[in-house]
């Protein structure tokens, strides 16, 4: 009933009706259609049926599901204090099924989930999900003001009434690479607005980190990244996934983080009185300040998700295997894994390493679980295609088969990237800087950080803090000595620095491939749509010619992120021609960026950092 009132307000107040010239009746009707499409219909009988099925399925899929129970207790407390928003990481469809399942099992109120519309086309399951609390939003509704108004009012009404916790994914979509995605702020704004406008005393945000020892969608994701189109979600697709049920996916981890109070988060950052001058039912675009705050908050929440992500030993092994494409002896793998384990722990990784078990034992367990990505013979492990015994028809196909394995493996390494990221950026910066002077190194660090800020979660504006954190970690490890004006590598630091810089190597190489492509591409009217296939083709040719060994350059995720970085750095510009968006490349600028990256890349020859920086500045 409450909601009907607000709907009235939307219909009358939003400028939709006046813009489209439709009568208010028309708009009201349209709004109620949207609402039907969107609304959840929570039915306990459906939930019970779901829980029954899910518990069967989960038991088959996973060896164990681990939950931090003190986190559940905190959540129970938080739910009683203020409305709660659950913010899980998103790696798999399993995520929200598992969330609802766990909350049900722990006798917590079931969340209402904002889920993408692609689920809805799954006929039967869509209805089921809706009845178990999900509501649906269209993937994109950028221009549809009415849709946005109805949607945000719907969420806010549920929040204000304290009806149920709201759940949504900050990252917006499932991460295909297992790296956290740059967070979206739209929904965050919606759930914070009732606080900004004084309608709620506070809102508790609970970041939830969900990690999988083995991801169900592993090879699906890899194929998708390589351009093999994603099948539209359909019920029959899900049935086919029954095959999945017979496999072993190891353990699953759900970590409920500390509730973050929106009130304390906004303290000193948001002037709530800016909402005083408009009736609160009128949707208000977030001001520049608010927008900056939302962005910052979203990054911090994703960082919390990252930090609480439980990592398995396999993640370390995958990192090492990727750095050694020709394979490793089991003994040296064991030795290096043990070394890496200590490094990761020193950097604060949340590692679930089984106690009282020999390192070799732990490794062989991990290898067994992931055997489909590996070939093991005579004490030698190598990443390779195991289930493609057919005669490879073309060299291209062979490359793609191998790339699927590499990208699958990379998705595990990516889970630990956030631990190594800052020291690794520093390690690369040390190599590319002209001198040991602290400000030189910092400049390089900052350049790299800037370049990769679409690739990794790097909170905007935190560059000095990140630099200091990296220095501190490496100093603590005895790798560096940080003096007043200089940063010096310790005698024993070489191996750590070498390892850290090769963590970033695939990204450096990938970005270089993209920039080389942009420089060499002669098509003046390159459209945005053509970009990904064209770069992929370009990288494929380089690999076939033996000039590129980095299969990760084929990943569309990396290519998109690189393009976004070039656009952000204004080396590439989007121009709208008719209904096509074409990319205009500033070749001088791209070239200079490539040179600078190349300098950071240990494998390529060295150019002068300063000159390329200067060129870059002229170019933009």
């Amino acid at each position: 009933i409450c909601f009907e009132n607000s709907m009235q307000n939307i219909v009358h107040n939003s400028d939709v009706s006046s813009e489209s010239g439709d009568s208010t009746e028309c708009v009201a009707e349209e709004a109620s259609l949207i609402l039907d499409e969107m609304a959840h219909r929570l039915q306990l009988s459906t939930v019970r049926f779901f829980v029954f099925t899910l518990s069967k399925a989960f038991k088959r899929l996973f060896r164990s599901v681990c939950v931090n129970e003190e986190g559940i207790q905190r959540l129970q407390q938080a739910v009683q204090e203020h409305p709660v928003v659950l913010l899980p990481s998103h790696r798999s469809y399993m995520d929200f099924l598992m969330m609802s399942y766990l909350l049900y099992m722990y006798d917590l109120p079931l969340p209402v989930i904002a889920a993408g519309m692609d689920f809805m086309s799954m006929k039967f399951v869509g209805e089921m999900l809706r009845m178990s609390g999900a509501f649906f939003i269209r993937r994109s509704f950028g221009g549809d003001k009415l849709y946005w108004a109805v949607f945000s009012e719907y969420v806010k009404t549920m929040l204000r009434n304290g009806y149920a916790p709201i759940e949504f994914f900050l990252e917006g979509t499932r991460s295909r690479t297992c790296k956290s995605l740059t967070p979206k702020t739209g929904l965050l704004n919606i759930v914070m607005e009732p606080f900004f406008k004084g309608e709620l005393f506070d809102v508790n945000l609970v970041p939830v980190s969900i990690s999988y020892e083995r991801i169900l969608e592993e090879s699906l994701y890899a194929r998708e990244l390589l351009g093999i189109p994603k099948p539209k979600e359909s019920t029959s697709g899900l049935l086919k996934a029954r095959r999945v049920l017979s496999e072993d996916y190891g353990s699953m981890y759900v970590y409920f983080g500390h509730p973050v109070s929106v009130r304390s988060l906004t303290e000193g950052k948001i002037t709530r009185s800016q909402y005083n001058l408009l009736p609160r039912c009128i949707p208000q675009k977030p001001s520049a300040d608010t927008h900056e705050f939302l962005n910052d908050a979203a990054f911090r929440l994703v960082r919390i998700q990252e930090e609480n992500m439980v990592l398995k030993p396999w993640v370390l092994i995958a990192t090492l295997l990727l750095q050694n494409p020709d394979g490793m002896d089991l003994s040296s793998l064991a030795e290096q894994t043990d070394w890496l384990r200590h490094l990761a722990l020193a950097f604060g990784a949340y590692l679930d390493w089984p106690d009282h078990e020999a390192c070799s034992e732990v490794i062989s367990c991990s290898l067994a679980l992931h055997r489909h990505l590996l070939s093991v013979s005579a004490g030698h492990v190598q990443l390779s295609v195991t289930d493609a015994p057919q005669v490879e028809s073309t060299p291209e196909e062979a490359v793609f088969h191998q790339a699927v394995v590499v990208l699958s493996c990379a998705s595990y390494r990516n889970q630990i990237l956030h631990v190594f990221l800052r020291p690794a950026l520093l390690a690369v910066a040390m190599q590319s800087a002209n001198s040991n002077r602290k400000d030189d190194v910092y400049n390089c660090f900052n350049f790299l950080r800037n370049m990769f800020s679409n690739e990794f979660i790097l909170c905007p504006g935190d560059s000095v803090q990140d630099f200091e954190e990296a220095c501190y970690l490496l100093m603590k490890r005895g790798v560096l000595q940080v003096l007043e004006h200089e940063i010096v590598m310790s005698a024993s630091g070489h191996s750590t620095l070498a390892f850290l810089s090769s963590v970033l190597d695939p990204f450096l190489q990938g970005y270089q491939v993209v920039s080389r492509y942009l420089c060499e591409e002669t098509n003046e009217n390159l459209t945005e749509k053509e970009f990904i296939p064209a770069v992929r083709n370009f990288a494929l040719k380089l690999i076939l010619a033996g000039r590129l060994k980095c299969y990760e350059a084929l990943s569309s995720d990396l290519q998109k992120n690189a393009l976004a970085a070039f656009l952000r750095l204004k080396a590439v510009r989007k121009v709208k021609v008719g209904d096509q968006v074409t990319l205009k490349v500033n070749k001088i600028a791209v070239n200079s960026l490539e040179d600078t990256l190349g300098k950071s890349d240990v494998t390529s020859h060295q150019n002068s950092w300063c000159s390329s920086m200067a060129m870059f500045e002229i170019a933009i």
Partner: protein
Amino acid sequence: LMASSSSSSSAQQRLRIIAGHLQKRPEDENASVAAQECKAEAPRSEPSSATPVPRRRQEIMKWNGWGYSDSRFLFNKKGQAEFTGKRYRLSGLILPSLKDWFEGTFGANLQHRSPATPSLNLSAVAPPNLNQPFVEDLKAAGLTVSHDPEDRVFRAHGHCLHEVFALREGRIGRVPDTVVWPSCHSDVEKIVELACEHNVCLIPYGGGTSVSSALECPREESRSIVSLDTSQMSRILWIDEKNLTAHVEAGIIGQDLERQLNERGFCTGHEPDSMEFSSLGGWVATRASGMKKNIYGNIEDLVVHIKMVTPRGVIEKSCLGPRMSTGPDIHHFILGSEGTLGVVTEVTLKIRPIPEYQKYGSVVFPNFQQGVACLREVARQRCAPASIRLMDNEQFQFGEFCFFLILLSFFCFDPQHLCVATLLFEGDRGKVLQHEKQVYDIAAKFGGLAAGEDNGQRGYMLTFVIAYLRDLGMDYYVIGESFETSVPWDRVLDLCRNVKERIVRECKERGVQFPPLSTSRVTQTYDAGACVYFYFAFNYRGLSDPVHVYEQVEHAAREEILANGGSLSHHHGVGKLRKEWMKESVSGVGLGMLKSVKEYVDPQNIFGNRNLL
């Protein structure tokens, strides 16, 4: 017949005027209907005389607490609360359940006392910093002047918690160096002229009921500070029955003004909660608001003409026209100027015949939301009674324990949620009854049940004794204060909830050992919003600097009010206490406009109390 009745009524009127001039109580039964029942009785033997407040206020009023010296709450030897004196209806009564409420709410204990310093330590008062030539000129002009420490201390404070707390502990800060009592407009002109000539700082003093640190002497003031006490300017100069206006000296206090007008068959209807002590000039200088503003209007609606003495000369309008289009209304530079521009000396006010009939009422609602919804509907239909106030559940509980008003037994209401609205109707008997029915019908739509006249009247009585109760709390480690705001209707509930919760949270964070009393009430309704009051008190045992904690919490509460769309003040004013938010409240340009007026009117900063700007 018509002619004879009209001539007889005009004859009556003339008789009344004559009777009024003879200063005798007319034999008019209506005169007793005035809303005086809840307030203190005048201490004077001749009730209709125009004796002003004595110069030595300390003879009848407390020097370190609220109100009359003879009226106070105390716990007697049996541990029962009683209210002393004879002035109030509550005087001499035993209030058996106050103790339970007091101990239960605050975790206070009658064994743990925090008594005040019994008398003023004269040696704690710094010797006056006198401007001798100025003082001599004042005396030469025949003005009454005092340098007596008691007189000076009495005029150095209002009734903010920190001011009263310091007095109770015997701490005396900067006090005025001289007190001067003008007795008419021209005295004030003389004083201001001399002040300019000798460059001394003037601080006008009316009733001394400020709750915004407005009377505090600025610490950085190095000139001699002179408190200009207007209390001796308390005459009603004339009454114009044709236009229903009265011309009054600005030092008159509310109860005297009302009583004297009542004797002539009139009233102003302006009844702020402080009306026993606050002055007409003070109302003008702070933009005061009265309980019955729904019928009579707030002070800005009541004034027809204001005369103010400024360093530049006298400001006033040239006629008594009811409205003018002559540029921005100059009255609005004066209203709310908080003594920074000059001294208000004379005011022409609208008056009304005393209403024929007055009736209290009360309504119980199942919860605060319903109550607010009802008040909003009453405002929408523009049928608000003279006064309508809504207390929240915590205040209801307070009222219940304090006054034993067990309101029937409402089986259908949860005693932890129900709340009470108190009502006051005024007017023709027939219309009042009709009006009453209309309001009760609206209330019924929101689940409200009528709860009788007595409860309504007691609710209003509470208003006048609540300040005395603070002094009782301070005897037992409990400190508290009230503050107010105004807010659009749609935000009333959210603001009340958020501010109350913020107070509780801030107290906890600052180490207050016991949960505070944090309550709100809606005290005025407008077309577009409401005035909301907060009462806040806590037990400060275990805190080393309770006043600082108190101030921090109040500061946070004010921030919360502003963040929730509430105003900086509805009628208490800004003073020095809320100055920091002025720019945010009225914009930089707005503040600049006010500053430029000050700059023109008082370039020497003679009126140097440093309020507002």
